């Protein structure tokens, strides 16, 4: 794989040339500080800007154009990563060598810039019809979070964090946030989006000099790119006492979410050791401490997982259980933490974790999204490239994993109580 960087006045272009794939992927990323008031606006923008433009008036016209471009796909999304909001526009397309049309590469690469630079704005307002379509869709999307027990429970649990912490913001916002958005305020948010830092990443078996020329030809964003961005990492406050919250719900199952703060991790711990800790605790499939204790030995649940939120400095445990088993589950979770602190895991388990991380990293080299994602965080956070991370993984020791266990402190315990009580399992 050949990595290159092209610098232009209003964006940087990062390319990865590889012949592994028949398709190519381009990602145009606008990034800015995560502010609560911007989150929903950026989500709205990503949707409406991939649905229509001044040239393609409706999603139908965009869909037809994508079909003409040999089933290319184009969509926008907004992600919150630590302290940053990233609004991305993603294009997937067939490698031009499979297509007889000689202008295919230029046609397909120009589409996202047509959509980004010429949105459906007239008289400083977004087109009302498309605005309403996206608003209705987001309205339903916000409401449908309430239909999924895991999403409701996780959102409510994270919402119990300090309200100024970006970790507590959901990318969808609330219905009242949505009601406050107007075609005019959205057009203003669009101008701010163009003002944010922009990077473009592309992967594929392509002549990257030609790609760079085409992109520069079509992406004439007049805004200067260099802007100071905050650190990616959120510093969440550690409470003196664990906050315990319980709510009733109409779901059958009861959902349990425990949030833990990770206090002052080192760079190495962030990149490798905490991933090991999480893998052994509950992130690594079916032989983890949590899975073994809650499911295999006590049949309390179908699944239980822990997730390490690197850029939020948080660790989250989530499971669905019967409501009579909450205390027993909490006791077993505490036992799992204790065992991790005491180093009650074997060298063999650490070796297994290493093998699995190396597998995951190698696997990410087999898909464009994985390659691009790694490159994005290499640029944003100096995350070592995959080849270097594999070497770092080999060096992690049991003592380091035990040491990082002491940096994990309980923060919030949230229970969403369901209605079903199956009796004894």
């Amino acid at each position, binding site marked *: 794989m050949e990595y290159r960087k092209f610098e232009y006045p209003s964006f940087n272009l990062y390319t990865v040339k590889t012949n592994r794939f028949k398709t190519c992927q381009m990602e145009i990323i606008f990034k800015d500080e995560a502010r609560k008031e911007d989150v929903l606006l950026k989500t709205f923008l990503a949707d409406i800007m991939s649905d229509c433009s001044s040239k393609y008036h409706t999603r139908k016209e965009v869909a037809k154009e994508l079909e003409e471009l040999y089933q290319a796909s184009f969509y926008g999304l907004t992600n919150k990563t630590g302290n940053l909001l990233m609004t991305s526009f993603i294009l997937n397309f067939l490698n031009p060598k499979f297509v007889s049309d000689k202008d295919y590469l230029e046609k397909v690469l120009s589409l996202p810039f047509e959509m980004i630079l010429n949105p459906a704005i007239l008289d400083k307002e977004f087109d009302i019809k498309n605005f309403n379509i996206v608003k209705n869709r987001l309205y339903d999307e916000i409401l449908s979070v309430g239909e999924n027990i895991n999403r409701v429970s996780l959102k409510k649990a994270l919402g119990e964090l300090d309200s100024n912490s970006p970790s507590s913001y959901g990318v969808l916002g609330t219905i009242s946030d949505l009601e406050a958005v107007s075609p005019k305020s959205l057009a203003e948010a669009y101008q701010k989006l163009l003002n944010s830092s922009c990077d473009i990443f592309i992967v594929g078996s392509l002549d990257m000099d030609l790609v760079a020329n085409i992109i520069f030809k079509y992406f004439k964003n007049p805004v200067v790119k260099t802007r100071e961005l905050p650190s990616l990492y959120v510093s969440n406050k550690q409470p003196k006492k664990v906050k315990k919250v319980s709510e009733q719900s109409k779901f059958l199952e009861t959902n349990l979410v425990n949030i833990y703060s990770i206090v002052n991790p080192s760079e190495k711990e962030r990149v490798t050791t905490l991933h090991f800790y999480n893998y052994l605790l509950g992130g690594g499939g079916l032989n983890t401490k949590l899975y073994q204790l809650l499911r295999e030995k006590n049949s309390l649940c*179908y699944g239980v997982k822990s997730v390490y939120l690197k850029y939020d400095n948080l660790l989250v445990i989530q499971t669905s*259980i019967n409501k009579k088993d909450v205390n027993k589950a909490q006791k077993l979770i505490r036992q799992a933490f204790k065992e991790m602190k005491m180093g009650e895991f074997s060298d063999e388990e650490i070796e297994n974790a290493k093998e699995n991380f190396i597998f995951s990293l190698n696997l990410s080299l087999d*898909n464009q999204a994985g390659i691009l994602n790694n490159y994005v965080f290499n640029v944003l956070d100096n995350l070592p490239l995959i080849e270097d991370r594999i070497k770092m993984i080999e060096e992690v020791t049991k003592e380091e994993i035990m040491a990082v266990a002491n940096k994990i402190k309980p923060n919030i315990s949230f229970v969403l109580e369901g209605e079903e009580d199956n009796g004894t399992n």
Partner: protein
Amino acid sequence: MEQIKIKGIDEVIYFTTAKCGLPIYVWKNEYVKSFYLSLNVNYGSIHTEFSIDGKKYKVPDGIAHFMEHIKFNVDKDTTANDLFDPLGSDINAFTTFKYTSYLVYATSKLKENLNALLDYVFNPYFTKDMIKKEKGIIASEINMGKDQPYNRLYFAFNKAMYHKEKYKYLITGEVEDIKKIELEDIELIYDAFYHPKNMFLIVTGNVNPYEIEQMVNDNLEQKEFGKYLEPKIINPKEPKYVVEKKIEIPFNVEVEKAKVGLKIAKKKLKDFDDVKLNIMLNLILSNNFGDSSDLKDELLQNSIITYLSASRFVLSDYIVIDVTLESKILDEAIKRVIDALNNLKMDEADLKRKVNSSIATLVLNYEDVESVNNMIQSYLVYYKKLIPNLKEIYESITLEEIKEVIDSIDTKEMVVVTMKKQK
């Protein structure tokens, strides 16, 4: 080893049969590091009634999925995870209506992974204790499924559509069904269906097909397989008419949803084989309900829907069409969908655009080792063979044929299931 050339898109699938009768399919991609193994059993949730040598058997609903769970036990102290964790690979399994699949995803140690997969699936270790323990876990999984609105909507739709077809029952079974499962049922299923001749192995990724064949034979020659019992599935005779035309489900739902479905006798379309029929129905539904359709555009523009999709299901005697929507004004949205089903359309330009983009998708499909493996599974389960001439089939479709299919679609046997917010 046979090389099956996928016409027009420069791909090859290797095929052979192991000495014990296990069919093996291999797709080679030397540009990636990963490989994906699936060992599949032609046994799914709908196969609960069968006969062996004329003797009839009936087992509890949910048993195929139950078997998939307990199959992970290798012996009293070992599970499949213990075999694969040292290899660093990812394993999983799933059960569908028609088959069960055991999966391994890895980037190294092919031989060890393949051996571990064959060793744990072809290992009839079952005890009463493990069956008892698994019942609690599966009860939790069943309740999780019941909390999902689309899962509830889908099975309510199937119950309204089918009198006898077992698609109307949950793949997991109900809690009451799995309580009935006994050790003897599990042993019966294993003996009848977990035989190499009733299974198939698919390997996709950076592998050598000839080495795969050798590895499989080396492993399976160490195992003893009894005579294949050749179980015969007893298929119920499904009436032509639907069970209920209209159902309303009150549910803990924030966004109201509905499904509109048609049951159409296939004899009206006897000129087309299942592959071509499936493709043509897909083109028609995509043209009328997809992102580039006039209907979806108009319903979105007028705030009548927020979501719309359509799919088809080709069974032995009939076709089922399923249109799903989300709307704040469900009744109006349903009316518009029914109108559209009564007035399906496609012109020459639409057909050309849809066929060209579908052919591009055929090329795109041969990219990811997991997707290719899944695609081969689908062909083998639904058509019992690979379809190497899909491109030719697409290119052969004429507007007259499309119109013939459209003319055969009527809304006489229609189901409307609405999911409304519980009061």
